[in-house]
């Protein structure tokens, strides 16, 4: 009895030690909230999406050289991020934001979330992807959603790989494609937009009717589609064609150095991710420097490895695996932000009726 009590007491104190209540004790992990003396003057909160990853040494170096303490605040996916910014536009939760993409840009711009800022780094290329003429958003990276195929599967079946949207509706490729629901998945939505961009507002419904007849499988999220249904991933699923990203094949390179999968470059839809200074930001000047940093060569050089997206800046080299397996698509479809804003819900509704009805 006494022994058991002692064990319990020891276990309890161990748990308390491990857990180290952060409500009562000081939270050791909140280093980014900044208690160092210089940070009181120069600190920027960067609101971003969940996928934001940066090499620690890159951000450390920026903080050292600029004297600006950067606090990163992740706020869900691009949609959640945008909505959070809209809801807090009167009293923003940060100074700069990164991660609003072309699908949501016009909502953010329409709500006046961002203030005008034209970065000097912008002439190094990012303006190619400008959201509109208002100079409020700077493109940081682009990510293309493309159909991916399992090359080994097609080789084994002696079937030519599909190339275009139309090929996917070909009975040759019956029951081979898995896509994500545009209502619940970002790549799913991009693929729908891509089909609308390529086939026009009149043509896309017919196309999807054909896809449905050809046995397209719809799942809720990229995780299921890619990890479980797609034959080219570690999940070794049954379907060799999946809607994923142009960059995905870079992660599927075998031991011998050859990619197992391939993105179909004629089926791509381009999403651009933007950064900008928030209206009502408390540290406007420093926030501008952070935007400059996001567009700088140093930051741009590591976005591919860290976030699986392509740098917006010109002349930034891609990692070796990417040049081999995941080159930047040249001829991606894209829809104007205001058109997306105006039609999105309607299109998704139409798609649902068509494909799931």
């Amino acid at each position, binding site marked *: 009895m006494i022994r*058991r009590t002692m064990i*319990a007491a020891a*276990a*309890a104190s*161990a*748990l308390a030690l*491990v*857990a180290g*209540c*952060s409500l009562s004790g000081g*939270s050791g*992990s*909140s*280093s*980014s909230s900044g208690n160092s003396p210089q940070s009181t003057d120069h600190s920027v*909160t960067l609101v971003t999406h*969940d*996928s934001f*990853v940066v*090499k*620690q040494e890159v951000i450390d170096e920026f903080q050292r050289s600029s004297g600006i303490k950067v606090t*990163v*605040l*992740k706020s*869900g*996916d691009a*949609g*959640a991020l*945008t*909505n*959070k910014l*809209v*809801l*807090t536009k009167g009293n923003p*939760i*940060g100074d700069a934001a990164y991660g609003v993409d072309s699908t949501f840009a016009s909502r953010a711009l329409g709500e006046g979330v961002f203030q005008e800022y034209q970065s000097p780094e912008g002439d190094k290329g990012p303006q190619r992807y400008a959201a509109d003429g208002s100079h409020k958003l700077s493109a940081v990276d682009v990510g293309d959603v493309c159909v991916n195929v399992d090359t080994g599967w097609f080789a084994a079946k002696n079937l030519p790989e599909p190339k275009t949207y139309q090929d996917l509706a070909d009975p040759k490729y019956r029951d081979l494609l898995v896509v994500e*629901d545009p*209502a*619940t998945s970002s790549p799913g939505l991009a693929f729908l937009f891509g089909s609308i961009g390529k086939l026009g507002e009149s043509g896309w419904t017919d196309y999807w009717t054909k896809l449905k007849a050809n046995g397209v499988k*719809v*799942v809720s*999220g990229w*995780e*299921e589609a*890619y*990890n*479980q249904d797609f034959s080219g*991933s*570690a*999940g*070794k699923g049954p379907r060799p064609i999946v809607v994923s*990203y142009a960059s*995905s094949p870079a*992660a599927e390179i075998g031991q011998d150095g050859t990619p197992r999968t391939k993105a179909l470059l004629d089926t791509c839809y381009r999403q651009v991710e933007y950064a900008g200074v928030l209206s009502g930001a408390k540290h406007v000047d420093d926030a501008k420097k952070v935007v400059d940093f996001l567009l700088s060569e140093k930051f741009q050089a590591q976005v591919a*490895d*860290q976030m*699986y997206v392509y740098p917006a800046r010109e002349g930034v080299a891609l990692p070796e695996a990417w040049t081999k397996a995941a080159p930047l698509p040249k001829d991606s479809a894209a829809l104007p932000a205001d058109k997306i804003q105006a039609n*999105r*819900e309607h299109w998704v509704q139409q798609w649902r009726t068509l494909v*799931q009805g």
Partner: protein
Amino acid sequence: MTRRAAVGLGLAALLPLGFLGVFFAWPVLAIFRLGLAKGGVLDALGQSETWRLVGFTLGQAAASTVLALLAGLPVAFLLARCALRGIGLARTVVMVPFVLPTVVVGLAFRALWPDGGVLSIVLANAFFNVAVVARTVGGLWSHTDRRAEDAARALGASRWRAFTSVVLPAIAPAVASAAAVVFLFCATSFGVVLVLGGGRFRTLETEIYLRTVELFDLSGAAALSLLQFVAVVAVLLLGAAARRRRETALRLRRKAETARRPTGGEWAVVAAAFAVVAALLVPVVGLVLRSLSTSDGWSLAGYRALSGTGQNGTLAVSGLDAAMNSLRTATDATLLALFVGVFAAVVLVGLRRGRTGHGLGTALDTALMLPLGVSAVTVGFGYLITMDALPGDLRTSPLLVPFAQALVVTPLVVRMVLPVLRAIDERLRQAAATLGASPLRVWREVDLPLAGRSLLAAAGFGYVIALGEFGATSFLVRPDAPTLPVVVARLMARPGGLNGQMAYAACTLLMVVTIVAVVVIEKLRVPTRAGAVGEF
């Protein structure tokens, strides 16, 4: 009840009500108001599509609840009534499903039934919630006197009759409690429906998420949230009505007096319970295997990578740091929830004693459960537009994570502690009072030791819920301090074999952390004073 006691009770009620008001009602109402201001709520209510959603939501939740009860009751019997080897293991194992990230469990169930549809949604929901039934019901069951049952048997009742006429009424409050909680969890389950529904099956919860996050249709979301709210309140009131008058003073017994070796037909129940436990383990074992297997055979690469920050630094922190974050946040959330929940339970017990307080008690009881019935995303967005009014701009504070988790844990604490507190004979407290114990002292000397076991069980369960909580956490967590479920979700969203393996390894780590936490918490004892004899 004396006037002084009434005032004390009123003051004590302020704490849970205040917590609920500031961290739940205020943000949720603020979002509703925003949605209502834009109009269009009536339009949404008029659509037949909306009512199909309501129907499917309630239907799948009801089916899942029934299944969870059917699977959970034998396990509750096993945990409460049987003195067998391996019970301790079973007690711990049933908790594991609860922490698993829904996306991982969803994928596991998809692998088992590729086109399962509604059936796999119901199975997965039940999988998560067997623990709620087993633990909530088992807690009270182990404390109920076995002699009434024996008496019924002696009077010629069959084992089944004795169960339905004596045992079931005694444990009914806990069954109703568990059913209400499970129903709420199932009605608002998000990840499971999303992954297994494949877009064809949608619930109010997934639609609210879609409207809030993707479409930014706050009025549509408000309309659906209101419906969800009404449905939840209706179910809660039904549950409260079912519980009423059932919670009587039981003669609480020590567990040692109520557990014994099963006999005769009881073995069939025990077998069923072990079958349920084994079934719970199937996806769990599958996950562990996945964490070890690569395209090139077995490997520990996932675990090795977890000690770092992932392939190309996918994670801001190492898996071990994430585990520590999980433990730290869950500790905060559990302590907070215990504090609020115990206060609430004490108030509820007190209100029931008063003749006038009964309606008030039901209202408070229901209000405490509401956080389980409202979308995490609604609360999360609500925080954004309200918490800046609090000192220190809590919107971006890391404190919000344990607060949000505590909202989910508190109802569980109340549900697990309340039946036992209510089962304590009021005169026992009065005896202590006449012997000179102040109300606080009565609580410490009578309620705490008698409800101690279930309090610890609630703490353990709450801890596990906080460990596994994803919806609110992913919305509020700071990137430099992600919890394990957040890490798993992040890893699952990346291509590449190693990331997947790491995700499964992180799941395994989460399970290990959970088991250790449960075992440690169960080893804890409520401190007792001289003259105390064993636990209740």
